[in-house]
């Protein structure tokens, strides 16, 4: 079976700045993959390319065996839209639609994009809100919710489209510490019960170790080291990985600057 995501020799630049440079990554279907690395190493960029929010300059990206990006050539908008249906994304800053209730956030896309009948989409939306522990918040506006609640609505919203691949970009980084746990619990539950492919960019090392099948350490726009959690987290072989892990496990010490 083809893999869920396949990055081959990907180069991504913003002007002069090469954000990804010869980036290689293959993600089998159903894998729970954690991506770690210092800030600015290109982690979000990888997810944004997979979500078809950003193009690339060179190389190739395949999503579920279909070509998403092939060099600098931009596929027609129709193709991008179709491929985006395979993937879902949860953002660091939630990006909920502020003019819609929690339930409306969750069921608008199934109705508008997939043409699911409204009543059916709402019923499914309530189930999903219940799954993330927010059954009683269906009618709340986003501004009435705490950060942790917003992020759980955002997770339900992405799930409602039933994507094969879910991309989580530092979904707990913008939260107050006391709300991190409730969101991680939802993700833990999701990872355990679902056969979706999940890519999680995270700074929660312990959490990554618990739920990931594999951890990828990125630095300077490349994969520096990867392996099963127990190996990568406790016996990293690359000096840069060792330095990064030291710095996150002992806050206050800086990771070395990327080159």
């Amino acid at each position: 079976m083809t893999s869920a995501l396949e990055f081959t020799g990907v180069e991504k630049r913003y002007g002069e700045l090469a954000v990804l440079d010869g980036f290689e990554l293959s993600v089998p279907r159903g894998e729970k993959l954690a991506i770690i690395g210092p800030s600015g190493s290109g982690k979000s960029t990888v997810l944004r390319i997979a979500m078809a929010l950003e193009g690339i300059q060179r190389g190739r990206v395949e999503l579920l065996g279909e070509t998403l990006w092939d060099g600098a050539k931009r596929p027609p908008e129709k193709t991008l839209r179709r491929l985006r249906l395979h993937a879902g994304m949860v953002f660091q800053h939630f990006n909920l639609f502020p003019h819609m209730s929690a339930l409306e956030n969750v069921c608008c896309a199934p109705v508008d994009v997939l043409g699911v009948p409204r009543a059916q989409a709402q019923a499914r939306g309530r189930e999903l809100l219940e799954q993330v522990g927010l059954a009683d918040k269906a009618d709340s506006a986003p501004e009435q919710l705490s950060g942790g609640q917003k992020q759980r609505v955002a997770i339900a919203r992405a799930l409602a489209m039933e994507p094969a691949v879910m991309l989580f970009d530092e979904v707990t980084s913008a939260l107050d510490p006391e709300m991190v746990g409730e969101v991680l619990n939802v993700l833990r539950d999701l990872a355990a019960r679902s056969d979706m492919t999940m890519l999680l960019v995270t700074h929660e090392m312990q959490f990554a170790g618990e739920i990931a099948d594999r951890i990828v350490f990125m630095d300077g726009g490349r994969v520096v080291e990867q392996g099963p959690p127990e190996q990568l987290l406790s016996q990293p072989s690359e000096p840069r990985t060792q330095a990064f892990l030291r710095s996150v496990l002992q806050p206050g010490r800086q990771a070395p600057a990327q080159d």
Partner: protein
Amino acid sequence: MPRPAHCVPQRWTNKPVSGLIELLPTLLEGLRLTLQITVVAAALGLACAVVAGLAREFAPRPLNWLAATYVEVFRGTSALVQLFWFFFALPLMGINLGAFLTAVLVLGLNTGAYGAEVVRGAIGAVPRGQWEAAASLGYGRAGTLRRVIFPQAALAMVPPTGNLLIELLKNTALVSMITLSDLTFRAQMLRAETLRTVEIFLLVLLLYYLAARLITHGMGRLERHLARGRDHGGSLS
């Protein structure tokens, strides 16, 4: 030695205030035309604003340039000269629109040119993350605009649009220069007839002011309505 009557500077004490009532019917006739022009030009202007604003933001090259040129031309030239041009010059090229149509066309296009910038600004002010969230859910550009961006931008558009509509109302006074009997035109006729300059123009100021208040009031209600939709999380579309 008294001067002849028509040379006497008028004072507003030379007739009782109750005489104001006599002036009203004529002025209200004028006000009606003023409001008609305002409403029709506003409708045209809002349509132009949305189309040109979206074209400037999203349309491919030639359309984008066309919209930019429209906005530049109408914002960069005097509305009075535009009126003259459409009313006096266009007929020489065989296009005769008549006074009313000329008035609403010019004032509407004028309002639309400023409104296009309002639309563009409000859409541009919606955070990029909203576009990305919608795209990640499978919305295309049109669907994103309609369901996600426009409902949020609408709230931000209301106050500047209110200002534009009041600006439009005041600009309608210019149509008295192309033979239309609007409020300002009637005022000038009345003044010539009755020489009661002070009362007439006080009344005219008051009528324009009340009409402007009406617009302010309406826009305030609209704004509260849109904001309430947000509080309760209701969809606006």
